Each structure stands twice: as structure tokens, then as C-alpha cells.
């Protein structure tokens, strides 16, 4: 990052993008619920990293800075969509679907798609902050201390909000629970799904 900041080194910046492109893309897609918009936001995040490179304090963690930039963009996009009266979550997308659209099908791939759509729609019901905590923890595998640094809130608050998010998701995802006939116990990463 020093080379990018001091000399505007494009090759060094390319290395940074190569390292962070995938995680930031995943974050933006999961925060917006839209693959297309998420990819646009990820590109915008890197453009902002380069444009604001002089504001980065050397010695601080680059990861914290880049996560925060991407999250702020996602929050801004969410606010813009709200003002326009739109939903960022695209029900017609590849992983699209609303809670009400959950109808199990015999084909396993179709069921997987429905499950993914339900999870996506459930995450959309959470507030921005709760969603960002869930995404950073459950999908990106950050420690609570790291999430606290990104969001600039105490670690205890992160845990409290995580509990709140899990409780809300528990209600929203009830149709997927085993008692509803959807046994998820054979899925991998049960304790800490670091799925991508």
C-alpha cells in the first residue's frame, strides 16, 4: 500500500486488487443482494481506495480500511435505493426469491436455489449494521475484534448485535428448519460456515 500511496504505483495497486477483489466482491454482493450491483460497488470501492490513497494512514491495517470503504459504499447504495423506493435485492436474479416465494421442489438443485433465495431475502430483512456483522463474521470469517475495528464500535456491541441478528434470522429462516422438513444437518461448516 505504501507504493500505491506514495508513488501511485499501478502495479502495486493491481496486486492489492488481486488480493482483495474476491472478498470485497462477495461482501458487496451479499450486502446488496444483487450480483450485478455488488460487482459494480466492488469496482467502485477499489476506485475509491486508489482515489483516497493519501488518506490511508500507513501502519494501520489495510484490511480494516478497505472493508470500511466497501461497507460505506453499500450503505450509501442502500440509502439511495430506499430514497428511490427500490429494493436492492433483485428477486429475479440468479439467486433471487422472496420469503413468500419459498416452495420446495423435488429437484435438489432447485431446492438449493430456493434455500439460497430464502437466506438472501432473510438477510435483506436485517438492518445494514446487523447484515454487515453477519456477512463479515459468517461468510468472511472475521473475528469479532476485527469487525469491531471495521465498524468502529466496541467488541461487546458487535457480539450483542450478532446475537440480535441470529435471533431475527432464526425467525425469518424458520421455514428452512428441520422441523419444517428441511434437514440441513448434513451441510458443511455448521459451526462456522465460511462459505463463499
Amino acid at each position, binding site marked *: 500500500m505504501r507504493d500505491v500511496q506514495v508513488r501511485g504505483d499501478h502495479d502495486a495497486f*493491481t496486486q492489492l486488487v488481486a488480493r482483495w477483489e474476491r472478498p470485497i466482491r*462477495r461482501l458487496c*454482493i451479499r450486502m446488496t443482494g444483487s450480483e450485478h450491483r455488488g460487482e459494480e460497488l466492488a469496482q467502485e470501492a477499489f476506485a475509491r481506495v486508489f482515489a483516497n490513497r493519501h488518506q490511508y494512514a500507513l501502519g494501520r491495517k489495510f484490511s480494516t480500511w478497505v472493508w470500511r470503504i466497501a461497507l460505506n459504499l453499500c450503505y450509501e447504495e442502500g440509502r439511495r435505493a430506499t430514497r428511490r423506493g427500490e429494493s436492492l435485492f433483485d428477486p429475479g436474479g440468479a439467486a433471487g426469491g422472496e420469503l413468500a416465494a419459498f416452495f420446495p421442489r423435488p429437484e435438489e438443485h432447485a431446492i438449493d436455489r430456493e434455500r439460497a433465495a430464502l437466506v438472501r431475502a432473510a438477510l435483506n430483512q436485517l438492518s445494514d449494521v446487523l447484515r454487515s456483522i453477519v456477512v463479515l463474521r459468517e461468510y468472511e470469517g472475521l473475528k469479532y475484534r476485527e469487525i469491531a475495528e471495521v465498524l468502529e464500535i466496541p467488541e461487546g456491541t458487535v457480539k450483542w448485535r450478532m446475537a440480535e441478528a441470529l435471533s431475527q434470522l432464526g425467525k425469518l429462516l424458520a421455514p428452512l428448519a428441520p422441523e419444517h422438513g428441511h434437514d440441513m444437518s448434513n451441510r458443511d461448516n*455448521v459451526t462456522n460456515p465460511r462459505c463463499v
Partner: protein
Amino acid sequence: MNHPSHEQLVDFLDGELTEPLQFEIEQHVKSCDECGAIVNSWRGVRSQLAAWKLAERAPVRATTGRAALQQNLLRIAAAIALLVTGYALARISSPAQPDMNQFRTELAQQIRGELRSELQTELATFAESYVTEQRAQQQAFVQTVHELDAGWLAALGRLRNDIETVAVRTQEEFARLASSAP
């Protein structure tokens, strides 16, 4: 023990408590329906979240400026080569006897058109990004100069006030001394 806090249950779920506390909460969760239901629900949620998988994409090599232009020109060259090959193959496989002069003319026109269009697009993109970057740097420079100017003006203003104050006070003191002199 009393019901653990939700923060403690989150740590319990991740196994991040000290060993004695982890054991204590585990015993509590086993015997307490309320806490047991919460932990089971959260475990279920974590399992369900794994259902949303994203297709991974090959990392995109980010290039800007001159490198991007070179890369795009290479792509254009490759596209033209492909076009020529395809066109030639189409002509060869055609049952009609090819008119070589007409073929050359058409091909040359097509290549010229494609090349012009692609080059114009790429050069316009490059020029636009270059101008944008230059403009941003100029704006940053002008902003810095303005800030410095503002700082100097403020400092000069304060200095002038101080000098005026000293002058007035000195004048007053001289007047007082003059009036009190015998």
C-alpha cells in the same frame, strides 16, 4: 448459574470462552430449555446461511492507464486476427468461386472500420481517464494552495490586530505620561 448473557452465548457458540466458563454454560444450556432453544436456533441459522453460495470468479487483473491501453490494443489485434481467419475460412468453404480482388477490398474495409472504431473507443477511454486523473490532482493542488492562503491571511490579520493594539496602547501611555509630567 443464572442465564448467560446473549454475548456469552455467542462466544459459547464459537467456543471462545475460557474452558471452565465454556463447560459451565454448556451444562446450563443442557438443562435450561430457554437457553437451549436459543443456542439450537442460532446453530440452525449458521447452518442455513451456508446455503447461499456465490460462484467464484477468476480474479480480474486490474489495469489502468497505459497498461490498460496496451492490453486492449492486444485484444483488438487478436480480435482482428480472428476476424480475418473466420472471414478467410468462410470464403474458402464457400461453394462459389471467390473473387480475390473483391475479397481483399471487403476485408481491408472491414478491418479498417473495426480498427478505427476500436481505437477511437480505447483512445477516448484512455484520454478520459487521464484527464480525470489530472483534473483531480490539479483540484487537490489548488485546494491545498487555497488552504495555505487562507491560513496565511488569517495569521496576517491576527498580526495586524496585535500591532494596532500595541500602537494604541503605546500612544495612550505616552499621552498619560505627558499629562502627568510637571
